[in-house]
Structures are given as structure tokens and as C-alpha cells.
């Protein structure tokens, strides 16, 4: 009996100890300094799953070089909701020192918790225009990750067999002709359809596709979009044409077609000739068919009739922000780390070779970009044939929950194009009242 009682007491005290230990976990990237000499802990909370392992390796290397540093990286992304996770992280009081912000809306939301990075080397090296979205009153509140671009990714082999020269596709008419040609031969080419349009993914239709046609009316500037009280749909017809083309020649039903079916099942297994996606799909394709990923794919522009036919949208997916609530020493070290990552020789090399990023900074040897899609994006950027990314400046939720959903309605024949345009115009105005 006595033994049992003791065991019970032990269990309870262990439990309490556990709870207390839990409460006692360390605070927001604080430096447990004073006792040890300038030991600084950097908590990084980031969203890019694709380069998680490489990033952790680099952090280790940095720790080796700087003995007083301890870097903790937490990654939430790739289907997980980073924005939601970041909010809970801050609510829990466990604030990270470095975190990611998307665009003007995020900057407006987080402004009080973002340190000024204007004087950092990374901000100075950032390519012209890339900092527009994160600059408030002359203060730079974030530095870019990398550049990304999207367009129509096509299957080179299929194009060759069908006798189509991808270089000849420079406007909507030539694209349409090529699609019709491919469609007429799809039996011999072993295709299920020409396109795979993932109508289920509202970010593909509502954010990416729409951006190509809305960016021009906002002068390709994310801040213009962010400040705009209304949206005009100036290139509405061109938008409809490209959407219709993708839908009419797509594997059906498009409204329930998702990203993995589009990229992994249909495109990587060469059952469709073209998909609208960006350079980030390289990894997925390489995971299935490395040979095809390295030698069989290329990127075509999304033609905006009446504006520019041979441009692709290129932009900055996310920015690094530094938490201004953190201790001064932590902020300083955080800036130093970002500078090292993007401007030191070792950092540059990693960014290019290990992360496989398209750099958004000056002073890189771009010939070393290895995968064909990133290369294509970089080449478009070099020639200046780009359309800006303005969808980060849409009202919160507008692109996906309003436009993307309306497009699903349109694809299901439950709404006409005019209704789509009218409904989303109104939603924009309501959101910006």
C-alpha cells in the first residue's frame, strides 16, 4: 500500500515537473547572455519546404564559423498554412527572430514587428524594384528570398514530334495555332489532352493566371495594386481567351483537377503537353523523371493580347523580415546572418548551387543556374521580358476566395464571364472601402 502511494506521488510530481519545464522554455530569440559571453540564439521561422535540408546545412556551417551563434530553424509550408502558423507562433509568445512576409498586406499587418533593414548589405544588393513591396516611408522591412517566374511549361519532345517550334510562339494567335495542332495529333503523341488546367487550385487561376492580365493595369507594381480602390479588368478579353484555351483543351473535369494531378500525374508522365506553372515544379518533375526534367521541358510565355505576348510574370515569392521586438543583439545578428547568406562568397555559392534559387541580388554568376526552368525565367528577366507580380497587392483573400472561386463557377458553366468580372470587381471595391 505504502509503495503504491509513493509511486502515485512520484507520478504526480513528475507530471508537475514536466508542466513547469514546459512553461520555462526560452523566450523569443532571446540571448541568454551575461553568463556566457554573447551567446546569441536566432530562431528562424520560414515557409520554404523545398530547401529546408540545404538551409539547415548552411545554418550549421554558419554556426561553425561563428561560435557564439545558435540557429534554430522551423519550417512550416508546402500545403501548410504559413500565415496561420506564424500568427499562432506570435500569439504563443514564442516570437521568432527571423520570419517571412509576403507583400504589402503582410507588411501593413506586421509593420510594428519588423526591423528596418535599409542599412543591411542584402538590402543594398537587392535587384532594382524587388524591394518595392516591402518599403514603407523609405524603410526597407524585408529582403527577398529569390526570384520566381511562371508561364506555360511545355514538353519539348512532344513539340518536336508535332513539328512545332516553341520559339515561334510569341503571341496568342501562334499559341492557339500550336494548341490546335497538338490537339489534332494527340492520338499519335500519346497525349490525354494538350493542357491540364487545375481549376481546383484557386491560386493557379485566381492568383497566377489573373496576375498576368491584371499586372499591366497596375503598372506591374505591387504597391499600385495595393493602393487601388478598384480593379478594371482592362485585359478581361485576353484573360478569358487564355483561360478558355486552357480549359477547352484540358483534361476534364477541370474544377476538380488539383496540383499533384496536374504536375505529377499528367505532366511528369507526359500525358499532357503544357501546364501553367512556375520554376518551382522542377523538383517534383525531377523526382519522377530526372531525365525529362533536365532535358525535356521549357517555358513559354503567357500571352496577354493587346499588351505583351511574349512575357512571363516574374516576382519575389516571399521576403525575410527581422523581428524588431527581439533583443538588440539578436536583431544585429539576424541582419548579419542575412547579409552573409546573400552577399558573402560562400553564401552566394549556396544560394545558387544548393538552394537552386534564381537570385534576386546583384553580383551573382547566373551562368551557374542549373535547372532549365530557372534558367528560362532568368533569361526572360535578363531580356526584360517580364510582367510584375502584383497579386500580393490584391485585397486579402480576393484572388483565391473571390476570383478563383468565381472562375470555378465559370468553368462549371454556372456563371458567365461578365458575371465573374462584375462579382469580383464589386468584391474588390467592398474590400477596399
Amino acid at each position, binding site marked *: 500500500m505504502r509503495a503504491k502511494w509513493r509511486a502515485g506521488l512520484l507520478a504526480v510530481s513528475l507530471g508537475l515537473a514536466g508542466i513547469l519545464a514546459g512553461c520555462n522554455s526560452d523566450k523569443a530569440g532571446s540571448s541568454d547572455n551575461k553568463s556566457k559571453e554573447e551567446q546569441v540564439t536566432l530562431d528562424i521561422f520560414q515557409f520554404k519546404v523545398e530547401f529546408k535540408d540545404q538551409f539547415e546545412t548552411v545554418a550549421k556551417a554558419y554556426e561553425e564559423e561563428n561560435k557564439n551563434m545558435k540557429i534554430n530553424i522551423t519550417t512550416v509550408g508546402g500545403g501548410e498554412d504559413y500565415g496561420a502558423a506564424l*500568427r499562432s507562433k506570435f500569439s504563443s509568445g514564442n516570437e521568432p527572430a527571423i520570419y517571412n512576409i509576403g507583400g504589402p498586406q503582410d507588411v501593413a499587418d*506586421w509593420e510594428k514587428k519588423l526591423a528596418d533593414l535599409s542599412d543591411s548589405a542584402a538590402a543594398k544588393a537587392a535587384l532594382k524594384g524587388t524591394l518595392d513591396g516591402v518599403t514603407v516611408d523609405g524603410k526597407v522591412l524585408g529582403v527577398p528570398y529569390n526570384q520566381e517566374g511562371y508561364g506555360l511549361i511545355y514538353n519539348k519532345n512532344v513539340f518536336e514530334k508535332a513539328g512545332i517550334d516553341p520559339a515561334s510562339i510569341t503571341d496568342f494567335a501562334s499559341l492557339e495555332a500550336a494548341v490546335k495542332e497538338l490537339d489534332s495529333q494527340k492520338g499519335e503523341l500519346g497525349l490525354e489532352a494538350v493542357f491540364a488546367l487545375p*481549376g*481546383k487550385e484557386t491560386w493557379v487561376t485566381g492568383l497566377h493566371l489573373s496576375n498576368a492580365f491584371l499586372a499591366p493595369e497596375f503598372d506591374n507594381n505591387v504597391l499600385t495594386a495595393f493602393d487601388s480602390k478598384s480593379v478594371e479588368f482592362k485585359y478581361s478579353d485576353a484573360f478569358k481567351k487564355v483561360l478558355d484555351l486552357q480549359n477547352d483543351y484540358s483534361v476534364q473535369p477541370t*474544377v*476538380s483537377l488539383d496540383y499533384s494531378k496536374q504536375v505529377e500525374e499528367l505532366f511528369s508522365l507526359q500525358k499532357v503537353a503544357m501546364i501553367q506553372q512556375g520554376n518551382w515544379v522542377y523538383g517534383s518533375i525531377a523526382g519522377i523523371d530526372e531525365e525529362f526534367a533536365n532535358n525535356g521541358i521549357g517555358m513559354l510565355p503567357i500571352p496577354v493580347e493587346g499588351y505583351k505576348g511574349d512575357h512571363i510574370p516574374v516576382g519575389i515569392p516571399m521576403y525575410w523580415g527581422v523581428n524588431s521586438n527581439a533583443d538588440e543583439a539578436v536583431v544585429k545578428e539576424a541582419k548579419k546572418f542575412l547579409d552573409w547568406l546573400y552577399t558573402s562568397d560562400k553564401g552566394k555559392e549556396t544560394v545558387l548551387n544548393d538552394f537552386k534559387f534564381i537570385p534576386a541580388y546583384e553580383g551573382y554568376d547566373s551562368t551557374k543556374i542549373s535547372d532549365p526552368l530557372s534558367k528560362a525565367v532568368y533569361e526572360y528577366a535578363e531580356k526584360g521580358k517580364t510582367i510584375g507580380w502584383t497579386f500580393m497587392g490584391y485585397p486579402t483573400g480576393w484572388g483565391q*476566395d473571390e476570383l478563383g472561386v468565381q472562375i*470555378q463557377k465559370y*468553368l462549371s458553366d454556372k456563371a458567365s464571364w461578365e458575371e465573374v468580372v462584375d462579382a469580383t470587381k464589386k468584391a474588390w471595391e467592398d474590400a477596399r472601402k
Partner: protein
Amino acid sequence: MRTRDLAYWLFLMPVLAAFIFVVVAPFLLGIYYSFTDWNGIETKGFVGFDHYIALFQDKRFLDSLWFTTKFSVVSVILINFIGLSLALLVTAKLKTSKVLRTVFFMPNLIGGLILGFIWQFIFTKAFAGFGAMFGIESLQGWLSTSSTGFWGLVIVMSWQMAGYIMVIYIAYLEGVSKELIEAAEMDGANAFQRFRYVVFPLVAPAFTVSMFLTLSNSFKLYDQNLSLTGGGPYESTQMVAMEIFNTAFGRYDMGYAQAKAVVFFVIVAVIALVQVYINKKREVEM
């Protein structure tokens, strides 16, 4: 009650603390947030009852509420019907009844998300393949229209929950005394009459429990909804829980979402209480 000793409270404390921290406190905090324009980062100010007024004109919210109601009515009826049928089947003298119980209960062990993805495959691939083989046009393109999405959800929910409900019915069916049934048989009641007038009233408490479970589970459904249709196409199969989540984390309108959640809580509570009250009245004592 007053004479409970220290040990009683010591052992109750962890549960009580957990309950207060995880259920009561967030709930009260949530009610507070529903009166503010909290965006998940900071609270800019009080808005009074604005959110509560707005949500009754919010077409998205009302649509999803209506869809959830339709879904719940159909699911509750179907799940209880199937659950009871299965229970009757496995309590009958069958050689395989033990195996069948396990088989019917199995879906309940699979997590809702996984289940949704498995059934998504079945609906979009297996159904389409089957349809193509036998030339049945209606099996094509499942989950891509709102009606097939609706029935898809109903099928998955019924498939998952029927086995669980079956277990509840089995417990009560096995409690029905053999003498009563025999007596009824002696009096010349046929199989249907025996079920309708003897067994059915005696398992009425099982109805109370299982209807409560199915009703509240159907109303609160989120995981299958997310993995099976994602609310699509065009949000037509979006249920309330998902709509609230999207308001909170899609548009970061957290205060507003919280107001919706409070209203949702009240609706579910009222419906469940009314249902239990009505069911209780119909139960008979042995």
C-alpha cells in the same frame, strides 16, 4: 460532496486544469474576440455587435449553413438506418458475425483526412473507370459538381460512422431480453411486428445517443470536407466549419470568424439539446 478528501482533488486537478485551460478559457476568450476586429496579430478596437449583424447577411455563411443542414439531415437518417441494419445483421445468428463486426467498424479507425483522400481517389478514378467500362455517364466527373460533391460527402460520412453507430445499437440490441421476444412470438407477432413493437422501443435510448453523435458530428464535419472536395467546386460544398476556418485564416478576419463560431456553437447546442429532449421523452423504461 464536501467530504471529498485531498486525494480526490489531487487526481481531479489535472483534468480540471486541462478542461479550464483548453475548453473554458478559450471559449470565453473567443466570445470576447468576437466583439473586436482582431486580425490575428493585434486588436484594433471594439466593434460591438457589428459582426453578429453582418453575418446574418453574409451569403457565404448562410449558404454553408444551409448546405450543412441538408447534409446533416441526410447523414443522420442514413447513418442511423445503416447502423441499425448492420447491428441487426451482426446480432442475427451468423457464422461470420464476429468478423463482420470488425469489418464494419474498421472505417472508423481511419482518420478523416486520409479517408477523404482515399475516397477522392475512389470517386474520381474508380468511379470513372467503372463508368467508362460499362458506359455509365453519370459516374464521370464525380466531385466536380455540387450535387456529386454533396453525395460524395454523405457516402464517406455514412461509410465511416455507420460502423461506430452499429456498435451502440449492438449493445442495446443484446440487452433486449429474449423472453420478451419469445412472448411476442407466442402471441403471434411476426418478425416485423416483433421489431417494431418490442425491440424498437427498447432500443430507443440508443437512438438518443447515436442521433446526438451523428447530428453533432455531421454539423461539425471539417476533415472529410477538406480532403474530399475542399469546399469546391466554387465553394458549393463548403460546410460551416470550413467557412469559419477560411474566414479566419484565408481572409484573416479573425474577430468576424469568431463571431460566426459563436453563432455556430449556439445553433449546434440548441439543435442537439432539442433532439435529446425529444428523444428522451420517447424512451420507455423496462
